[in-house]
């Protein structure tokens, strides 16, 4: 059998393909994004980017109602958005398998929190499967779909950043499920699929009984397995934590859970009875530990290992030594790090980023800015320090509206990207128009979903599967919602951005500024890159251009004779020619594109 080195995300996509998924939907979000990007390469599976995770899950549910195996994919916080659908899907069940992939982000490599979505599984009575490498990630997609069909309910596949972005060897198989010979009939069953109170009351006991059946299944599930060795220590674990524990405790007994909810109670009880000391090694919350304690079994877990952040072999080893689970001499000798004080490489807005000029302008106008989730969130960093709140997808507009209704003296501004506006910004803008606040909304339309790596969205004119489609017109959209004051500006033209903002700030009522300019890293933008230059005779080292915080601008070795300050220099390898620095320079010391291009001609 052919073995390939696959990242967890590639393996999940492969698993969906092999096990006959016909419809898959997602909203991009780190660490889950590459699952649908990989799945879109298989023509046999219809894959799409939905505007948000709730829509994606409804789409997958609809496909499963219609008899096709389906998958919805999201990052952990995406399931908050999709939670309503997650709960009703558990109540109704489906006609074909439905798997919901939740990609959690311990250590918050790219997230606002590190919520543990296994709680959602228990909350909504949805079985939860957890792979500990790419092979299991692939296999468990098929298992999830079979279980979903066997027990008539959705199944969650919970992965984490470390599983998603680690490559391990995977045995590839063929696509097994056969396509139906003709389009399936839609099976009508109103008592099952119309969740009005009367039907829901009849369904609830069915769901509780389903959980008991899944629990019985868990006792015999092959991926819940016991590995016996030295019985002085027994470890219950799952997900990538299994790998760390296996490495740190090579001789311990293991109960390795492929299904982390519901737990196989008999199996746990028997395992606990065979070992002297029982511990749980799990990332984030004390989920398995609490479940075991509820069985009345003595167990340790978060008393030893941390709740916050990601585990790794070093942390597991250190905590195990401190707890007396390993001898002192099990410690790995480490030389103290010399890395303190080294210059860091913090995340930054890229050279040529169209968001930069907008923040330079909101700073100039001393505006309070309620921000959102996307590349522009980085506008909060010094020296721009231009963004003053950021909570979750789509929050900016509602928060700004609330700030306005609280009656603060100045007008405040919401800043939101194109894809985030489609995600959850639209209902909030509708609210601004409906309830009329003095909120100015800047839609940073960079023609892509940039932060997660340039995914298509309803504004780009293309689908995930590269089909041309309608590209929404923001101006018509926001006007239809009831916003009458609408400006569209080139985000690179500071004077235009400022004039539009001033017009909105001076008038009463809601307003929208669409600051449009494609992300500087898109191919269409790269073709227009030009390198600007500093005229050292004109530059006096005033430092205004340093404050635009462009990685391409730095202090040169040359000091100005009068001011004794370093003159500016532009790195020709980094500059894209956006001209934001040239526009803030009062001494006209930085060339504009015209001048450069004129010379070239």
């Amino acid at each position, binding site marked *: 059998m052919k073995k390939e080195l696959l990242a967890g995300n590639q393996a999940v996509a492969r698993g969906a393909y092999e096990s006959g998924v016909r419809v898959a939907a997602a909203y991009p979000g780190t660490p889950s994004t590459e699952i649908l990007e990989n799945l879109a390469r298989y023509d046999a599976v219809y894959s799409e980017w939905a505007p948000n995770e709730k829509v994606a899950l409804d789409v997958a549910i609809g496909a499963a109602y219609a008899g096709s195996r389906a998958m919805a994919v999201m990052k952990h916080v995406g399931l908050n958005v999709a939670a309503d659908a997650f709960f009703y899907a558990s109540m109704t069940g489906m006609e074909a398998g439905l798997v919901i992939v939740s990609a959690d982000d311990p250590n918050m490599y790219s997230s606002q929190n590190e919520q543990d979505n296994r709680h959602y599984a228990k909350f909504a009575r949805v079985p939860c499967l957890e792979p500990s490498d790419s092979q299991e990630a692939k296999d468990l997609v098929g298992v999830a779909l079979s279980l979903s069909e066997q027990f008539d309910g959705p199944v969650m596949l919970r992965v984490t950043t470390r599983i998603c972005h680690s490559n391990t060897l995977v045995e590839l198989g063929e696509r097994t499920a056969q396509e139906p010979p003709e389009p399936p009939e839609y099976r009508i069953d109103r008592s099952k699929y119309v969740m009005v109170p009367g039907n829901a009351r009849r369904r609830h006991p069915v769901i509780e009984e389903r959980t008991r059946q899944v629990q019985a299944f868990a006792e015999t599930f092959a991926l819940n397995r016991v590995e016996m060795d030295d019985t002085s220590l027994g470890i219950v674990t799952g997900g990538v934590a299994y790998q760390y524990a296996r490495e740190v405790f090579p001789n311990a007994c293991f109960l390795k859970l492929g299904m982390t909810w519901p737990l196989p109670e008999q199996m746990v009880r028997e395992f606990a009875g065979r070992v002297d000391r029982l511990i749980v090694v799990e990332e984030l919350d004390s989920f398995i530990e609490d479940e075991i304690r509820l069985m009345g079994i003595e167990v340790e877990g978060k008393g030893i290992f941390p709740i916050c952040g990601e585990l790794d*072999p070093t942390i597991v080893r250190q905590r195990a030594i401190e707890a007396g689970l390993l001898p002192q001499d099990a410690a790995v*000798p480490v030389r103290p790090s010399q890395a303190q004080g080294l210059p860091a490489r913090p995340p930054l807005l890229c050279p040529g980023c169209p968001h930069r000029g907008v923040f330079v302008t909101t700073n100039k106008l001393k505006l309070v800015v309620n921000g959102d989730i996307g590349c522009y969130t980085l506008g909060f960093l010094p020296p721009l320090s231009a963004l003053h709140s950021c909570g979750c997808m789509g929050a900016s507009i509602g928060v700004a509206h609330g700030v306005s209704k609280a009656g603060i003296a100045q007008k405040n501004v919401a800043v939101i990207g194109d894809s985030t506006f489609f995600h959850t910004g639209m209902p909030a803008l509708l609210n601004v128009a409906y309830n009329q606040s003095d909120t100015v909304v800047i839609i940073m339309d960079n023609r892509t979903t940039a932060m997660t790596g340039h995914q298509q969205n309803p504004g780009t004119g293309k689908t995930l599967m590269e089909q041309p489609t309608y590209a929404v017109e923001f101006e018509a959209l926001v006007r239809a919602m009831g916003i009458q004051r609408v400006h569209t500006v080139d985000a690179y033209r500071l004077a235009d951005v400022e004039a539009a903002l001033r017009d909105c700030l001076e008038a009463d009522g809601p307003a929208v500024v669409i600051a449009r300019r494609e992300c500087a890293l898109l191919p269409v933008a790269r073709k227009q890159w030009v390198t600007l230059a500093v005229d050292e005779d004109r530059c006096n080292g005033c430092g205004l251009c340093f404050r635009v915080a462009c990685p391409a601008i730095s202090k040169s070795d040359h000091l100005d004779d009068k001011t004794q300050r370093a003159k500016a220099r532009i790195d020709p390898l980094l500059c894209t020619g956006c001209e934001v620095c040239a526009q803030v320079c009062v001494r006209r010391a930085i060339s504009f594109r015209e001048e450069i291009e004129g010379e070239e001609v």
Partner: protein
Amino acid sequence: MIKTTGMNFLLAGVGGQGTLLASNVLAHVGVRAGFDVKKAEVHGMAQRGGSVSSHMRWGERIYSPLIGRGEVDLIVAFEKLEVLRYVDMLRSGGTVLVGDMCIPPLSVSSGSDVYPDDAQIRRILGQATDDVHLIPSIRLAEEVGNVRAHNIVVLGALSNRIPQVSEAIWLEVISEWVPKRFVEVNRDAFQAGKTAGLSAG
């Protein structure tokens, strides 16, 4: 110093430098040589020019995709500042191979931080191990005709450290992973690095 049972590599560089390509090549060399291989990319939010690192493990049976602190056999770095961030990951007697590319972060180019000089870099690395090798990767890559092949130069130097893997495997995998029109220059880059690696110090 080469363990026959397996090896732990830590690759480090700056986004856009070819660190991930090099780690893909190294991973597939390990697979083709018959090892169980795990590779974990460690990075924060997507950005140009950020720190990039990759944990890579070869062995008979690998569990954790992450390497514990003090358990890295070989640090393979493509930038001189980045290598310093990981010295505490190295096991005693471990090896450091670093290409001599220098990419100043914004705090350095804006004048608020200083990029460490070569003596300082050697001193910090020397506190961790005696087995430190600075590879003139940029000069060698330029000599074979493409500066972007500097990452493959470093892999060439690394290949000397893994004698149980044949040169044929390296060249085969490199040919599969670099764009077709750059295969020749990358094979030359590998050879240049291999020759330099024997004498570098």
